[in-house]
Structure formats: C-alpha cells, structure tokens
C-alpha cells in the first residue's frame, strides 16, 4: 500500500512540474505580468509542495501506526478475557493475532484470539483507509495552496531555495545522527561489558579466551564464575597482535609507497605517470577478501615452504603473511597521498636548490622530502589506521589464536578478527562474550580516531605552510 502511495505521489509530482511550468508561462503571457522566477521554479515549487508534506505524513504515520494498533489490540484482547503476566506474553499474543490475520498461524484458535483477530482486521482496514484519505487530503490542500501562490507569490525562487537548503540540512543531519547513534550503541554495550569485567582487567590482561564465557547470562554469573572470567578478557594480546601486523604492513607499505610516490612525483614523465598511477590505484580497488585468500592460500604456504627449507617452523597462518599482504594493500594509500604532497611542494624550492648546484636526488632528499614531511607523516598515519582496522586479510591469513608473541612466523590475531570470531554464529546477547565485541569495537574506534586526528592535524599544518 505504501509503495503504491509513494508511486502515486511521484507521478502526481512529475505531472505537476509540467503543469506549474506551463501555467506560470500562460499567466505571464495572458496577464502580461513579469513573474519574478523562471517558469521551472514554479514547477519545482509545486513538486516540493505536493510531495514533501505527503511523504513526511506517510513516514510519520508508518512509524506510529503499528505501535498504536498494537496497544489497541492488546487492550481488546485483555477485554476479551486474555491473560498475560508480563510484556513478553502480551507481545506473544499480539504476534499470534497478527499471524491469524495473515493466515500463517497453525495452532489452536480459541474464541479470544478469534475475536481479537477480527478486531485486528477491522483496525488495519480503518487505519489504511484513513491513511489514504488523509494523504490525498494533504496533497489536494497543499497543491491548491501552492497553485494559488503561482499568481501572487513571485518568490517561488526563494521558497525553492529555502526548501532545498532544508533538504540538504536534513541529509547531513541523518549522517551525523547515525554516527552518534553508532557511537552510543558501542558505548552502552561496552558499559554493560565493563560492569561484569573490570576495565583494568580488560586493558591490562594478557590472556584472551572469551569462549570461557560462552552462553552465560551476564545477570546469572556467580561470584566464582566471575573470578574465573576475570582473566579471560585480556586486551594486551590483541593490541599486540594488531600493532605487530600493522607494523609489518607498514614495513612493506611505507618504503615502497613512499619511493613510488617520489618516483611518480619527481621522475616519471607525464606519459608514464598517466599510465602507472591508475595501475597503482587499482591495488586499492581490489576487494580485501581477494587479498585475504591470496594471503591464506598462496603467500602463507609459500612462506611455510621456504621456512621448512631453512629448518624453521612456520605456521601456515602467520603474522608475516598477513602483514605482508596488508602492506601491499596499503601501498596505494601511501604512494598516492605522498605523491600529492610532494607535488604540492612549490617548484621555487626545487629551483632554489638546483641553483646552488644540488642534483636532483640531493634536492629531493634535503629539500623536497623535509618540506613535504608533515604531509607524508599524515599519509602514513592514515595508512596505519587503515591497517589497524583491516579485518578480512587477518581473519583469513593470520589465525585466531591470541598468542602474545613477537615471532612473525607464528600465528597471531587482531582486534578486528576477534570481533568477527565473537559475532559469527548464534549469539546470546547478554553474554559477556558477545558484549566484549562492543568493547573491542569501542577501543578500536578510539584508537583509529586518535590516529586520524593526529594525521589530519599533520596534513593541515603542512597545507597552511604553502597555500
């Protein structure tokens, strides 16, 4: 029904656009008035007036209709003699009634349910009908109002601007509110987690084995169990693994990315640049899961083979393989950002250096790179936060065991991998195990936020210098 209504509103709006356009033209010719706005603005004006009030009404109605119907139905059922002790039972009865109405209920139907289902059907009908009537009423009212404005309101242009500004504002508001919503949901779940597990046990614990808390209600944990869980959620192995893999990734990405950025910016001819820059940027477009299975199926076993030849035990899921592939994934970030900052170092600095007799590489090393350094640091930090947040590659290539190790040939795990592991499969939502995922998410979020902030400050500082 809603889709039909939206469709009708759209059709109606589009035809009103043309109607408004031609009507304003006719008016200005017939009455010889010079309208203040172009005909198309009157068209837009009608469209906005016809669609926005009706759509907003439809949205609000759809949000509240189920809630109102539900409370009415539950009350009717209670009046019919239905008994329920708490909210959950009431919900159950309501679901039953709904299922009867839809014809998908196969249990026993007693008279109470039957009566309630009939009432439900009646209310649904009533609500739908009144919704349609009201919407058409709104459309007609707003169209009549706006049509009248074509005659004497010469400010259609300004009104359209105001409405458009409002629409843009609402869009950005939605984006901001969503972000805030996500942060708060992370925060609240984390608070629940930290009410069971001490913050310090979490932050400084060196053992991560969340499966110990499997399927255990937060509310029903006994003191003895709590003692046992105390050292199950130690964050240290995860942050160590994350940093370690990110470090290996940066060992790969920073030199290669930076050098290729320097080559692109300083040495490559326009032709080479035009071809090779997009190719490097394709690296950034490869889905991370592809990198992941490349790391897991090709690079990991390859390292193991090499390790065996040297008599080393290399786990086939190693930090080295994951870090290496992640580094390759990050190369384009470092290279294209550092290419940009190097390019924006003014030519006059290079000229100054050449003029005292410096060669190209001396100039790059001693003048260009130092001048671009804040920007380069910024690009590296952005790459680091990308590495820390990367999930797929580590899930596939680095393993799941939370080893506290600095041997790159062993398997380690990262924060993101553990979040995936915790949330895969069936979940008990108030088990500390599940909630720990939110705590991890929050920690990760704060870490990347700080890194991004520092990176952006660095980049900004650099920009101020030359603009």
């Amino acid at each position: 029904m809603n889709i039909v209504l939206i469709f009708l509103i759209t059709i109606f709006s589009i035809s009103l656009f043309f109607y408004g356009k031609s009507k304003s033209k006719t008016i200005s010719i017939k009455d010889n008035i010079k309208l203040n706005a172009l005909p198309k603005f009157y068209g837009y004006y009608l469209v906005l007036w016809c669609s926005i009030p009706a759509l907003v009404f439809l949205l609000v109605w759809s949000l509240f209709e189920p809630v109102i119907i539900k409370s009415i139905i539950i009350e009717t059922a209670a009046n019919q003699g239905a008994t329920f002790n708490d909210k959950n039972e009431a919900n159950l009865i309501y679901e039953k009634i709904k299922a009867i109405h839809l014809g998908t209920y196969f249990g026993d139907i007693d008279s109470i349910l039957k009566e309630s289902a009939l009432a439900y059907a009646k209310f649904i009908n009533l609500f739908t009908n009144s919704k349609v009537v009201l919407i058409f009423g709104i459309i007609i009212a707003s169209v009549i109002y706006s049509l009248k404005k074509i005659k004497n309101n010469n400010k259609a242009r300004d009104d359209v601007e105001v409405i458009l500004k409002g629409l843009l504002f609402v869009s950005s508001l939605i984006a901001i509110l969503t972000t805030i919503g996500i942060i708060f949901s992370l925060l609240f779940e984390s608070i629940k987690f930290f009410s069971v597990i001490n913050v310090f046990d979490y932050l400084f614990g060196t053992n991560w084995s969340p499966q110990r808390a499997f399927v255990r209600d937060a509310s029903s944990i006994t003191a003895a169990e709590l003692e046992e869980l105390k050292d199950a959620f130690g964050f240290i192995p995860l942050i160590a693994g994350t940093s370690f893999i990110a470090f290996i990734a940066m060992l790969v990405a920073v030199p290669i990315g930076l050098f290729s950025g320097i080559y692109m910016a300083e040495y490559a001819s326009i032709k080479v640049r035009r071809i090779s820059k997009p190719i490097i940027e394709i690296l950034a477009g490869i889905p991370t899961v592809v990198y992941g299975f490349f790391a897991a199926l090709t690079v990991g076993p390859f390292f193991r083979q090499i390790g065996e030849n040297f008599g080393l035990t290399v786990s086939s899921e190693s930090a080295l393989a994951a870090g290496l592939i992640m580094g390759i994934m990050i190369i384009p970030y470092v290279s294209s950002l550092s290419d940009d900052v190097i390019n924006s170092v003014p030519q006059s600095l290079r000229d100054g250096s050449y003029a005292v007799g410096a060669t190209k590489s001396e100039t790059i090393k001693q003048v260009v790179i130092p001048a671009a350094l804040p920007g380069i640091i910024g690009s590296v930090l952005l790459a680091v936060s990308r590495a820390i947040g990367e999930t797929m590659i580590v899930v596939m290539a680095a393993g799941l065991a939370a080893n506290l190790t600095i041997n790159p040939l062993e398997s380690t795990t990262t924060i993101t991998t553990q979040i995936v592991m915790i949330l895969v499969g069936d979940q008990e939502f108030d088990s500390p195990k599940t909630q720990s995922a939110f705590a991890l998410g929050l920690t990760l979020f704060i870490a990347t936020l700080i890194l991004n902030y520092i990176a952006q400050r660095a980049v900004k500082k650099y920009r101020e210098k030359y603009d």
Partner: protein
Amino acid sequence: MTNIKIKSKNLNVYYGDKQALFDVNLDLNEKEVTALIGPSGCGKSTFIRCINRMNDVIDICKVTGNIEMDGMNINDKDLDVVSLREKVGMVFQKPNPFPKSIYDNISYGPKIHGKGETKSELDQIVEKSLKKSALWEEVKDRLDEPGTSLSGGQQQRLCIARAISVNPEVILMDEPCSALDPIATAKIEELIDELKKTYTIVIVTHSMAQAVRVSQKTGFFHLGKLIEVGKTEKIFKNPDNKMTQDYITGRFG
C-alpha cells in the same frame, strides 16, 4: 677595458614548438651589473636561465647556439652542471628560502659542494655570506630559527646569502625586488652595488628606475629578440632604437 665574462652568440631557445629567444648576442662584463629590461614574456628570464642551465629543469626546453663563460661552453652537453651552478648563483623573483633554519639555508650549498668540512669552517662561511648580504646584524642571534620566519626583504637577502655561500663568480637575479616593498628594495639595491665589486651580476627587472640605479649596462628585449644593448646611461638617455625609446618612455609594455 673591462673583461667580458659571459658571451652569447646566436643563442636560440625553444619551448616545444614555440621559440622564446631569437639569435641573442649579448656580452656581460666582469664585475659589472647588467640589467635586462623588456615587457613580460620577452625572454629576459629565459636568457639568464641559460647562463646557469636552469632551463634543463624544463623538459620541453631546447637551447641552441653558443653561450660561453670565460671561454667555456656553457651549452656543452658534457658540461658538469653542478660545478657550473657553483660558479653561477641565482636569486629568484619570489624569495624561496628552504623550510629549514637560517643557518641550514646558507650551509646547504657549501655542504653539497663539500666545502666547510668542519663545523667552524661552516660557521665562517655562514657568517661571511650573511655579512656580505647585509643580513648578519639582523639574524646573528637567531640562526636556528626557520628561514621562512623572516620578513620578505630579509628572506630575499637570505636567498642572496645562499647564492653567495658557494662563492660564485656570477650572480643571476630574476626580478629580485618584484615581491618587495620600497624599503626592502632599496636595501637590496644597495647590496647589489656592494656585491658588484666581487661578482658579475645580471639582473632582470621591470623597473626602469631600478635598472638606471643599479646597472652599468642595459639590454632591452622584445618578443624574444635583443633589440638594443649598451651603457645604461646611453640606453636611457639616448637610445638608438625607436622601440627602446618607446619602451623606456612608457609608450608600451
């Protein structure tokens, strides 16, 4: 009789298909200031950039003809550009100090050429260069501050100090005062007067008054051609060419 330091013969410069200089024959006297004047885009800067081969930086630029310094062919393919630029310093239109300390700005050149191996030798070079560029008194207590923190005029004198730090024979100045206020300009002009005792100076300028004040010899360029060259006095009082006359009296350009 003054010696001729730099001699160009039938010098042509092309940027891609576009010819920027046409058969320029110009002699620059040793320890004298030569001013190059002319409307924008006439090839003055292109000419001086031939003297220290700065045009090499531009990919599409091609130079033909002859340009010699003390009998050495500057345009020779095999010439060591690094040692050429050691002998021919350059100061640019906009002050372009490196984002380094004042000290490092000056010591940059000597270090590159392996001069001043010990710290005290470097200190001496820095001090001497800054004194020569009349900046020493203003900055001697803050040599470790960034060069970019100086005022525009000071920055330009810093760039002059940077140019003379490697002990060149020729200094090229490409409109060195165009970004400066009159007081800073006066200081630079005073400095140029002082520097010409030691160095051969070529200055590109848009200010006729400046050319009169600082130079002994003036060359007038128009559309890539050297129209007239001669003693500054003569060029400004009694030029041979009608076009020169029109330009210096402000009838075009």
